[in-house]
């Protein structure tokens, strides 16, 4: 069963906090504080409402941002991306990235570049009609 509206609002506040501060080291205490719940109660409610733990949500947010940065034109280093999105160690970033995306960060960037180059050859209407914007 989904939590009530007031609880959902509090949970959403905590989730917004993750969205804004994902690039900092965040603890469960800090996040649950935003929703004014005890950490274990918060953990349970959060998972019930969003189908994932706050930690999973945070990781996803970081990985998404890392993908954006890796796709960007300028040659930003993987290490810089890792710290910029809030990871503390390159090792855990790389292995989490691989687990979530299916490729190592550097391979992901190469593939994304190839896709971008291909995309530039295709008229925009096809990109839209064939739903290729996010590919």
């Amino acid at each position: 069963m989904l939590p009530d509206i007031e609880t959902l609002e509090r949970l959403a506040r905590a989730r917004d906090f993750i969205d804004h501060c994902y690039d900092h080291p965040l603890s469960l205490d800090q996040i649950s504080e935003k929703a004014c719940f005890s950490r274990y109660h918060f953990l349970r409610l959060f998972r019930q409402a969003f189908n994932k733990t706050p930690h999973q949500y945070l990781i996803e947010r970081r990985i998404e941002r890392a993908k954006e940065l890796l796709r960007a034109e300028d040659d930003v280093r993987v290490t810089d991306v890792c710290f910029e999105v809030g990871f503390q160690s390159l090792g855990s970033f790389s292995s989490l990235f691989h687990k979530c995306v299916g490729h190592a960060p550097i391979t992901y960037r190469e593939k994304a570049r190839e896709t971008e180059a291909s995309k530039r050859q295709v008229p925009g209407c096809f990109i839209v009609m064939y739903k290729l914007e996010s590919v």
Partner: protein
Amino acid sequence: MIQRMSHATIFVTNQNDALEFYRDKLGFRVHTDAMVGPDFRWLTMCTNDQPDFEIILMEPKPGMLMDEETSKTVRSLLDKGVLGAGVFNTNDCRGTYEEMKAKGVQFVSEPAERPYGVEAVFRDNSGNWFSLTQPTGES
């Protein structure tokens, strides 16, 4: 104001087979062949005389532009051979007809005199039919 047409889509049952057919039997060349993501292949071909007009050879795959039902419908239209995709011009309809026939292209009708020139009709290997026309005055 619109100046000209640069791209047109022809749905084909298999892009690899279509590429071979258009290249080896019709004499087209590949203009662009690029993967966009894992599932979308942008394959366009053109004639040597008209390199700025690209024919897009597209599979009616479900999941992107089409849902499962639409995809099936387009495939069945191809299989039924009801899709006529256009007119190709030549300066020698009978000669080109013989060449293409020798390569195994299936013709629906042999070259015949029409008010506008000499015309034959053939199918590609997906079932699309095309007119092969030698306009009056060209030889």
